[in-house]
């Protein structure tokens, strides 16, 4: 048992490999699209996945950025005036994501990322809406 425990803590090292990620800041609401030209329709496949999990009917993209992260070189991506993420490539398809809200570290998450899967950091916003930072690997 102890051996297994310690074995699980030993990080697996791999050679440096760039990891391409797409980061989207998405806003979820049950209301219709506001008259804001900055808001775009979210990719239907992403919106459908979000609808499967969350209660909001409509999802709009506030910002989308592509980022390539190399092992050992974390990158910060500004998603909005108040929201920033820092992504680190840990190798072996693992990433560490730090989410900053108004400059303060709100959450840190380490996760294996798979090409067909989404990693979503999210929270409530005012007026029964929600924000989502959706991380995915762009389809090649």
């Amino acid at each position, binding site marked *: 048992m102890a051996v297994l425990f310690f074995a*699980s803590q030993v*990080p697996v090292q791999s050679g440096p490999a760039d990891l391409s990620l797409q980061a989207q800041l998405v806003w979820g609401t049950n209301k219709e699209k506001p008259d804001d030209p900055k808001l775009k329709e979210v990719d239907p496949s992403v919106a459908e*996945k979000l609808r499967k999990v*969350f*209660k909001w009917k409509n999802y709009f993209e506030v910002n989308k950025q592509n980022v390539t992260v190399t092992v050992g070189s974390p990158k910060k991506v500004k998603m909005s005036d108040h929201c920033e993420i820092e992504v680190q490539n840990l190798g072996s398809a693992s990433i560490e994501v730090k989410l900053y809200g108004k400059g303060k*570290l709100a959450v840190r998450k380490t*996760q294996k990322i798979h090409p067909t899967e*989404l*990693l*979503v950091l999210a929270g409530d916003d005012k007026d029964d809406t929600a924000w989502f930072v959706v991380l995915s690997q762009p389809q090649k």
Partner: protein
Amino acid sequence: MINHQTQLKVQAYLDGELSAGEARAVEELMRSDADAQALHQELRIARSFLAGNELERKLPESPEFYWSKIRRQIERAESTPDGLSEPTAPPWWSRFLAPAGVLGALAVFVALVLRSPQDGGTFLALDDSHEIETPLEETSSFSFRSEAAAMTVVWVDSHRE
């Protein structure tokens, strides 16, 4: 007019909860007592209405997310001292947990020391590829995975009311 106890018997009869002898007694009562018979009829109709028209409640979110939020709320409520519950004496077996707790803490400490430098500051490892930390006191988070949506979610709760 039948008393409350008899009303309960009639209800139990309808629900099939009585022994054979009790059921026969209730049947006998209903043959001779119009009130008991009327109550039985009323309950039977109500039950058929409920069975046929029960309101279907659909979760607004995925079950994983819905129950994760409830679990989180319960955990938060339990961790908040309300001053109402009386302190209870620890059970006798808790004294055996203390040495186990020390060993566990030591194991965690050694494991953290053995980690590579870039992993410094790590606290909770669910497995070798999944960790989560919420450093701000005014925020909390929980993580769950939705197989249906092929998605891992970290929900950040800022405790806004």
